[in-house]
Each structure stands twice: as structure tokens, then as C-alpha cells.
């Protein structure tokens, strides 16, 4: 009933919208109505958001106290994300009618984290439908990017297909770069699609500074043989210091993680400190980061003699780690958040 009434309202507003140009004076007055409807939706979305936030803020302290990984912790997380479930239908409907409303987008993304499969499916379907309706809008792009890594394989595949179509249309755009990057780093995709994405990246961005981002994307964990080759080529041929530094970083980490190629890896890492001391990737000074990693690899492995720390305590009094020699010492890097 409510739903029908809602549709009727929309139909009315559409009709009014069409008649505005015909009688401009009256129209100016009437045109307030759709805007009012929009305000009402925005207001309701804010209300829902507030209610969810309040309920979640009651659960959050319990989560902070629970041990990560324990059954209790998992239960609390389920409860935390589940708070939004009861609003799912309403959120989906409001988001569908107000695709550019930010609160709606946030709430929709939040629903994706629900542990209730039914809710997730509903949200995924709705998001996909809205992105399909207007695939070139900025909103749709971020929706599709989010869906690409969705556990719902069908939705992920459809989103990937739509995004790849966009890449074919404008392969050198920033969006295309983002799409290809996340395809290449995806854990769920078939190797075929990954290889294809890598090829497209090289073809369209191989000679650009963006390759530094690509290399930085490979610094966590082992790199496939194909990508090692790709990075080595980039290191050789790129004209950008940032690309050379970033590829040295990725390759250096990759090689130094393996005892057989450790020396080669450490040499690459050290080359960053020597050759590119000022290169920044985003806000990170790469040489600084690498210095830490080298120090860690050479001094902080199990079985090594710990390097001393000299510094000040919270009262500004100087003390040394070596003051505690002869005792079993727990060094605890902590922060109160």
C-alpha cells in the first residue's frame, strides 16, 4: 500500500515536472514539491543513520574489550553490522530514489557488511541495478568498483564486465587505471583476466609515472613470475625515479623474503636509499621506509642480538633498553586508541 502510494507520488512529480515549462509562473511554485520530497528522503536517511550510529556506539566499547578472533568478538561484530538490517528495505528504496545522496551511499555500503546473506544479496542486486541504469556516473563507478570484490560472484562478474567495457572505451583514463589495477591485484579473478589486465596496463600506462603505484601495489606478499619480469622491465626502462624506486622496493621485498635470493633483495632495497633518497610515493618517503626494513632484516630477526634503544620516558628522563640486560624483557610497541 505504502509502496503504491509512493509510486503514485513519483508519477505525480514527473507529471508536474513536465508541465512546468508550459506555465512557468505556476511551475515555480509547484517545483518546490519534488525538492521537498528529496529533502524528506534526505532527512529520513539522516535519521536512520543516526539511529544506527547510536546503537552501534553502544556495541563498540564491548568490541574494543573483546579479543580479536574469539567467538565473542565475531558475535559482537555480527551484532554491530546487523544493527542496520532492520532498515535494509527502507534504505534500499531511498537510495534507489536518491542515487546521489551521500548518506544513502554510505548506508548501502554499510549494509554490504551485514552477516545476513539475504540483506547482502538484496543490497548487491539494488546496487548493481542502479549502476547499470547510469553506468557512466561517478557514483556508479565507485559502486561497481566495490562490487567487483563482492563475495557474490555473479555480481562481481557483472561489475567487472561493465567496468572493462568502460576501459575499452577510454583506456587511458584514470578510471581505467584504477579498474585494471584492482583487477590485477584481485585474489578472486581467473588468471586469464588478470593477465589481460596486466597487458592492458602496460600497453596504456607502461611509460607513465603511474607505474610507481602499480609497483607499490605489489609490495605485500610474493609476486608471480610474470609480474617479476614486468617489474624488472620497468626498473630497466622507466624514465621516472619514482617508478625505479617503487619497482626496486617491490622486487627487493620479494627477493629478500626468500633465503636463496636474499642478498639480491637487500641490494635492491639498499639501492633505494643510495639512489633515490628523496622519492616520495604519496606521502611516504620510500628511502625512510626502506631504511627501517633493512634495519629490521639485519638486526631484528629472531636469534639476533637486540640493538639498543636510547630515549626518554614519559617524564622526559633518559633511559636505555640495555639497562634491563640480565632480565627477560618484553618490548611492547603500544598506543592507546
Amino acid at each position: 500500500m505504502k509502496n503504491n502510494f509512493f509510486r503514485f507520488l513519483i508519477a505525480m512529480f514527473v507529471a508536474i515536472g513536465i508541465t512546468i515549462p508550459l506555465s512557468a509562473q505556476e511551475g515555480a511554485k509547484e517545483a518546490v514539491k519534488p525538492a521537498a520530497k528529496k529533502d524528506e528522503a534526505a532527512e529520513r536517511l539522516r535519521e536512520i543513520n543516526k539511529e544506527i550510529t547510536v546503537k552501534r556506539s553502544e556495541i563498540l566499547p564491548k568490541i574494543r574489550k573483546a579479543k580479536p578472533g574469539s567467538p565473542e568478538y565475531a558475535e559482537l561484530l555480527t551484532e554491530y553490522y546487523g544493527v542496520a538490517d532492520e532498515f535494509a528495505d527502507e534504505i534500499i528504496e531511498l537510495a534507489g530514489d536518491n542515487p546521489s545522496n551521500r548518506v544513502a551511499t554510505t548506508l548501502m555500503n554499510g549494509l554490504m557488511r551485514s552477516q545476513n546473506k539475504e540483506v547482502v544479496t538484496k543490497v548487491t542486486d539494488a546496487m548493481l541495478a542502479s549502476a547499470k541504469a547510469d553506468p557512466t556516473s561517478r557514483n556508479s563507478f565507485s559502486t561497481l568498483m566495490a562490487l567487483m570484490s563482492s563475495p557474490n560472484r555473479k555480481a562481481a562478474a557483472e561489475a567487472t564486465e561493465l567496468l572493462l567495457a568502460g576501459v575499452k572505451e577510454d583506456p587511458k583514463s584514470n578510471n581505467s587505471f584504477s579498474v585494471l589495477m584492482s583487477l590485477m591485484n584481485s585474489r578472486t579473478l581467473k588468471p586469464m583476466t588478470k593477465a589481460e589486465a596486466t597487458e592492458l596496463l602496460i600497453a596504456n600506462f607502461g611509460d607513465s609515472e603511474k607505474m610507481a603505484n602499480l609497483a607499490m601495489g605489489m609490495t605485500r606478499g610474493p609476486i608471480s613470475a610474470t609480474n617479476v619480469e614486468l617489474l624488472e622491465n620497468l626498473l630497466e626502462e622507466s624514465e621516472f625515479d619514482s617508478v625505479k624506486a617503487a619497482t626496486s622496493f617491490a622486487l627487493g621485498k620479494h627477493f629478500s623474503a626468500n633465503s636463496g635470493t636474499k642478498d639480491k633483495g637487500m641490494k635492491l632495497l639498499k639501492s633505494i636509499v643510495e639512489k633515490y633518497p628523496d622519492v616520495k610515493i604519496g606521502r611516504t618517503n620510500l628511502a625512510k621506509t626502506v631504511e627501517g626494513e633493512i634495519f629490521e632484516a639485519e638486526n631484528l630477526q629472531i636469534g639476533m642480538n637486540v640493538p639498543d634503544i636510547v630515549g626518554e620516558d614519559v617524564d622526559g628522563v633518559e633511559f636505555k633498553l640495555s639497562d634491563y640486560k640480565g632480565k627477560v624483557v618484553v618490548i611492547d610497541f603500544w598506543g592507546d586508541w
Partner: protein
Amino acid sequence: MYPHERSLVKQLADKPFAIVGVNSDRDLDVLKEVVKKKNLTWRSFQNEKGVDGKISEMWAIQGWPTIFILDEKGTIRFKGHGGDIDGVITKLLGEMGHEVKLVHDDEKNEDNKAESDGSGE
């Protein structure tokens, strides 16, 4: 984390054992407040005040908390973000001839107690 550490310090008070913190909060006032309120009985370095620069940067710390455990000679015997810390401590003290058995109270109770007794031992 704090209740567990407080409990360790308390139980191992007469053993060759110490906790040394490296705090990564930037605001010293906040830090002092935490030390007082949460009754932290062990000494902490201010991360920013290492003589060689930021300690966490130098040590390439990538997540908090990160724990290192050293034996009496200063050899690194454990590093990680958690795990069987009690087990490692027990083993290392055992190597020195100190048999210990660590038992922790329910963490919540421990937290409340420390709040009220404030003795810090």
C-alpha cells in the same frame, strides 16, 4: 592488553623480568593521562624521543601492538602481534632456573581492581 601486562608485572615482581613500552601516541599529555589512569607500572619510551629518531620508524613497526621478547642476554626470542606471550616468558625464565606458573584473573576484574587499589605493584 593492559590488564594482562599489569598482571605479568605483578606476578613476576620478584623475578628477573621487565616490560619496556614504546608508546606511539603523539600527544604527551594524553600519554601521561593513560599511564596514570590505566595504572601502567612499567616504563615506556616516548616514540618520538629516540636518540636516533622515531623508534617505531627505525624498527619498521607496521602494526600495533607489536611485541618483542628478549632473553637475559638480549637475544630476540620472539616477535609478533600477539600469540603465546606467557608461554615464551615462562620458557625463558625457566632457562634461567626460575620456575613460574602464570595465572591471570578474569581481565575485567583485574581492570576494576587496579582502578580502585592503585597500588601498581
